[in-house]
């Protein structure tokens, strides 16, 4: 049996971070892009909690994770409102086709 250590958590968070970036870059649907952002935030969250637990840094990391969860919720609420506004205006949410503002 392998003991689960800090490295395992860091690998998972690095993978989540990479998936998040990949999602942001490749997806065309605005909602999917926002899900990619969510993955990035959660990767950082895992990092904070894992470091706090295995580095014996006290509770700072956990507190930070709580703040991030709250902020992610706030950001999701505002983001979805903006995407809804986009849908009302353009009748789709494909970010590649929303490019009126190019020179």
């Amino acid at each position, binding site marked *: 049996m392998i003991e689960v250590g800090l490295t395992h958590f860091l690998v998972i*968070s690095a993978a989540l*971070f990479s998936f*998040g970036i990949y999602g*942001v870059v490749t997806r065309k649907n*605005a909602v999917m*892009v*926002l899900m990619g*952002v969510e993955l*990035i*935030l959660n*990767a*950082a*969250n895992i*990092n*904070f909690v894992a*470091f706090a637990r295995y*580095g014996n*840094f006290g509770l*700072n*990391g956990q*507190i*930070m994770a709580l*703040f*991030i969860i709250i*902020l992610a919720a*706030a*950001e999701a609420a*505002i*983001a979805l*409102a*903006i*995407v809804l*506004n*986009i849908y*009302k*205006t*353009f009748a789709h949410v494909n*970010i590649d086709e*929303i*490019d*009126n*503002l*190019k*020179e």
Partner: protein
Amino acid sequence: MDLNSLYTSFNYIAPEITIAVALIMIVIFDLIFDKNKKIIPYIAYLGIFSALFFVAANFNLTGTNYKVSSLNESMGMISTDTFGSFFKILILVSSALIIFFSKTSEEIKKTFERAGEYYALIFGMILGMMFMVTASDLILIYLSVELLSLSSYVLAGFTKLRDRNAEASLKYLIYGAVASGLMLFGISLVYGMVGSTNLAALNNYLQLPLANVLTFTAAAVLIFAGIGYKISAAPFHFWTPDVYEGAPISITAYLSVASKAAGFALLIRLIRIGFVRFIDGDGNWHISGIFDWQSFIIIISILTMTLGNFSALWQNNLKRMLAYSSIAHAGYILLGVAVLSNHGLMAVMVYFFIYMIMNIGAFFVVMLIADKTGSEDIDDYNGMGYRTPLLGVALTVFLISLTGLPPTGGFIAKLYLFIALVDANLIFVAVIALLNSVVSLYYYVRVLKHMYLTRSDKDDLLFEISLSNKFFVTGLAALILLLGIYFTPLLDLVKNVSFFTL
């Protein structure tokens, strides 16, 4: 922490508390006076001026507060110091100007039934920015950046009058969310290495060569991504032209001045508290060897100003042109940061003070003209110098100042920046910045050419502007001209306030 020390610590964030109270007041008054929204801008003024009063009253208050560690006295959530107070004043003054701006703007007037929301969101931005300039802990830095961002995403698409409003807020949101995600990941790596999110702890950690260079470089670049997005530095600037063009023009002006000032203050404080090992007698900052901020920022700033200036050359929309010009100015200001000395810091502060006046002035004139003609297109400026002589002259002053020609304030700002660069033996960089200024002359003067040399068939259509607007524009233009010849008070002020609490 007993109740008494809690009470004294309120002094340190009195302006922020005032702004938060004003925000709540605006929301409540919006609900009570459902029919009559005229009162809301005045509550906003009241909030801003009382916050200004508290900043001025506590101007010499220095210290670190809201301790995160019982072991070390210098580790707190916020550092109150004169550097922060200077930027708070800058932010509050530009907010007051923007509220006047918003009261005049036709775009905002058309959505006046939602004025309560508008001013509440503006106050959300102010609160975020005020915490950004004082935060000395990565948690608070991240939270304040997000507070600023979340309010400004909504404001970018606030008016919903045209398709481009919605598009601007979507673009701002997506770039912003990714940038703040990157920054957060960088912060988590720093936390893992240092064991604390405090900047003073980071500094202590960097005194010893413990860190893994590769990881630390990655973390520093990721954190810079978040800040670089706020100040629209080169690889993170893609949102700027689109958002500036699509957002309501009062918000564009606000983003280009106040939120940029807060971003720069944050960057300077991060480097100054987190990375500076010691300061020698000449005021040069010696940075921990692990991450070469100087070369990094110089590369970024050269990229930023070159990209900004060359893209601005073929813009036909004046708002979009000013967006690129603000990218270029971010490049110049970054050079002041890159000097990494007290001289460079003073140059940045002088630059920002003047930049605030000239940029808000330029956007205000563009707004007044756009309200009348319904367009920001440069071809619609033909003959504008004859149709509205006052606005024509004022815009000329602002654009010449943005180029950096005497006898305007912009010249003094650039002069001090270049002196700081030459003092630090960065002559090569100064030459590049100078060449960039020459390029910028072309696109600023192009507007003047359209205004004065190209005739249009509508030359006789004079248009009227209200007395208060005339007063506002003349005041800003006069201030710019005054700062071009009598700038000693500003320099003395900056010399006295560029101090940090460590």
